[in-house]
């Protein structure tokens, strides 16, 4: 598609990358067909092709966008379903990331919106603050029903509902030293997942120990930065990325690493992008690229090795919910499905498996109406296959799909794999049955 960027504009590496993405788009409209918000709203402005036009216009003309433009870009889940569908290979992810940062720098949001976004950015990436906030939230959560379900209060309700999600005990440092070492890996310990579901990485650790994969700690790491990144807070996301690159580089230099394992696929997409995010920083570019090449979703690591013997084949009917970050962001589609089948579960395919569940980081708080519509749509698709358990690879989806009318308990894929190969029954399952 034709663009009109000046030579001077194109000297800015961010604009140059965006221009290239826009140039690749041929306006075929295939992306609209698999876009969740286009499915719900039926407006070109709420599909990727229309958003590309809005972003093109904004960036080309160096425009401070109107509230309308911001509304439509905000509605994008960054689920990247469009990326999977796009035949011409438009780099939508980096284009929308760049646009979010552009908006954040130039557009003044209403104060209540700024406050909400500031609150989320200040709490969620920090486990201790998040834990405290959850405790506070729980105190107030009985009041949820009293809040009118409109405007900003809707977001507040969504936040308070999140605090009702069960949390686990504070996790000890992860260390496991198997007898035969097939690989040496470190976890991205993450921020929200260890607070909400510490059992996920515990299950992965047990599974790794059984498989002879050594897990080493990587002190100094923090949130992957995805959350603030998707809020357009670029400087902060880069700061998280640099700190993490430093932390893993120390481990890489001291004994090497075969993989950096991510159990929350939303974070995985972010880690795999560090190489791009820090490409213009000489002090970090090479090391960030290394981290990105080592980043693996836990299912990828498991699929690359042999699963331990299945000692407890439950035969449960599992509906697998593919997290967007895993299926679209990282292109990991078959590994989790194959592993679940190998571990003796009966896998059921669900309709519209390409669609997002509405979680999408903090989207469910910022866009509660759309998030809820998508959750219900997803839960209906899940319910249609009458599963006994729902498996997914991302804490966001797990929390989202456990809310409202969940057709079955929702657990992480590794919890089921751990259970089938000698681990304890997933807490999520026992809680429900």
């Amino acid at each position, binding site marked *: *598609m*034709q*663009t009109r960027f000046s030579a001077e504009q194109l000297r800015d590496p961010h604009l140059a990358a965006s221009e290239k993405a826009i*140039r*690749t*788009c*041929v*306006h*075929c*409209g*295939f*992306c*609209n*067909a*698999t876009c969740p918000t*286009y*499915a719900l709203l*039926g*407006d*070109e*402005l709420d599909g990727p*092709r*229309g*958003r590309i*036009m*809005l972003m093109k*216009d904004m960036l080309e003309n160096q*425009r401070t*966008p*109107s509230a*309308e*433009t911001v509304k*439509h870009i905000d509605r994008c889940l960054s689920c990247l379903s469009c990326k999977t*569908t*796009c*035949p*011409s*290979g*438009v780099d939508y992810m980096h284009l929308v990331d760049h646009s979010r940062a552009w908006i954040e720098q130039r557009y003044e949001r209403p104060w209540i919106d700024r406050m909400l976004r500031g609150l989320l950015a200040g709490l969620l990436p920090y486990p201790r603050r998040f834990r405290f906030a959850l405790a506070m939230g729980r105190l107030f959560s009985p009041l949820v029903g009293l809040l009118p379900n409109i405007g900003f209060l809707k977001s507040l309700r969504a936040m308070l509902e999140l605090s009702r999600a069960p949390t686990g005990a504070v996790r000890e440092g992860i260390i496991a030293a198997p007898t035969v070492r097939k690989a040496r890996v470190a976890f991205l310990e993450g921020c929200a997942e260890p607070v909400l579901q510490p059992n996920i990485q515990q299950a992965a650790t047990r599974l790794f120990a059984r498989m002879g994969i050594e897990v080493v700690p990587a002190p100094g790491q923090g949130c992957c930065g995805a959350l603030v990144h998707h809020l357009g807070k670029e400087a902060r996301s880069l700061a998280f990325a640099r700190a993490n690159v430093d932390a893993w580089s120390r481990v890489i230099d001291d004994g090497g690493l075969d993989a950096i394992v991510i159990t929350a696929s939303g974070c995985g997409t972010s880690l795999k992008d560090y190489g791009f995010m820090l490409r213009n920083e000489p002090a970090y570019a090479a090391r960030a690229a290394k981290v990105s090449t080592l980043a693996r979703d836990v299912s990828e690591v498991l699929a690359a090795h042999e699963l331990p013997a299945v000692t407890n084949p439950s035969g449960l009917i599992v509906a697998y919910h593919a997290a967007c970050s895993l299926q679209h962001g990282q292109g990991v589609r078959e590994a989790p499905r194959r592993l679940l089948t190998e571990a003796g579960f009966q896998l059921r395919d669900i309709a519209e498996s390409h669609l997002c569940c509405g979680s999408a980081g903090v989207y469910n708080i910022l866009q509660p109406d759309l998030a809820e519509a998508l959750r219900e749509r997803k839960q209906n698709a899940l319910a249609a296959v009458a599963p006994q358990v729902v498996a997914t690879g991302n804490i966001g989806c797990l929390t989202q799909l456990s809310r409202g009318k969940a057709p079955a308990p929702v657990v992480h894929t590794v919890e089921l794999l751990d259970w089938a190969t000698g681990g304890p029954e997933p807490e999520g399952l026992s809680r429900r049955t």
Partner: protein
Amino acid sequence: MSLRMPAPDPAVLSARAEVIKGLRRILENDGVIGDDESLIAYESDGLTAYRQLPLAVALPRTTQQVAQILRFCRERGVKVVARGAGTSLSGGALPLADGVILGLSRFNRVLDIDLENRVVVAQPGVTNLGITEAVKKHGFYYAPDPSSQIACSIGGNVAENSGGVHCLKYGLTTNNVLGVELVTMDGEILRLGGKTLDAPGYDLLGIINGSEGMLGVITEVTVRILPRPQHARAALLGFPSVEAAGQCVADIIGGGIVPAGMEMMDRLATLAAEEFLHVGYPLDVEAVLIVEADGIDAECDHVLALVNDIATKNGAVFSRLSNSEDERLRFWAGRKSAFPAVGRLSPDYYCMDGTIPRGRLAHVLQRMNEMSERYGLRVANVFHAGDGNLHPLILYNANEPGQLERAEAFGAEILRLCVEVGGVLTGEHGVGVEKRDLMPEMFSEIDLAQQMRVKCAFDPEGLLNPGKVFPQLHRCAELGRVHVHAGRVAHPELPRF
């Protein structure tokens, strides 16, 4: 843009705010877009060479709203361009500066699955693939399958009489549509056809198929569905020259075989599709042919054995049969995404859509190669080989001054060539604006006037999608037909004889 469109009506342009207000009243504030910054998303369809911001966009949800909008626009003399999924490659939904885009994207529900009558009733915004998806679990499918079937809407398919890779055996849209609900410009809701193969009276449905949004706005479509064939297998064949592949196609058809689909891609198109989906297409050949047989198992085997013999005789150097349903679908998936996948090779392309007698394929290809050199623009070829429908994609760079104009001239020359060898201007993408000015190459003034009279019968003021299809705008009165509406003669200022 070098394309001339009807001059905007200054009275309508200056009444823009009122038009938007009126639309908002009808749609209760939900689904009217009126600011230029947002309208940019609607400035073109799949043909990006031509762009125009519309006056406004309206996204109704009900037939009643469509009728109200049309009535409102007619009263105010506002032009209306209907738009489905905006995937047209001929600019069928190109906006007008003084026209409202009437988007049917919110008409996205399947209304009735009637297996006993083997029909589906769907709203026009349902995607082509969406119909098949809706009946898949019952073992049925909707046969016409344009390559954009994932995204294109069934309403748009009717408007353009879309084809697809399986139309060789199963017919175009017109052969698979049984009925429509249509709203005319004066807000009248018509139902044409129904659930049966033929309806009494004139075959008005026949003129709605392919009417390119000029007769009315389709608000419901009834289509035939077919039981899925027991078996379907596809052969992937590679040839050292496009001519050899073309001869193979001619020999297959000449041999009395009607494959379920027969598609050809040249090296450039194959490369683009392979890069996107990694199908396993051979990349060291000049042409790839996909031939599908369907029916009972023995029939598939028999047909494909015959095809394989013919291919070998024509010098095929690569031959592979699909071994699973998954593999067969992958053979097609690459082909179906070939157009946009060409976006990997070139920032812009201009997709042509001419049809020629199959026997002239080699000649036409050779002439196109000469033109390609003369214009200095690459061309990637994708053909519905079985029915002689060519889709040369002219690759150009819109950021380079002069390239679009060269691409346009190149395209026009290709289409003239199609007519010259006994073919036609369009196979399945419609005329739109893309082939509008070439219509006289094919039709005489008398032919065109006759076609316009049909439009005048439905839309005497010429408010529905004007500027498309016909190279010259005539007012209906000039065509010698006196239309009397509500006791008033239209255009009393025009002399009558």
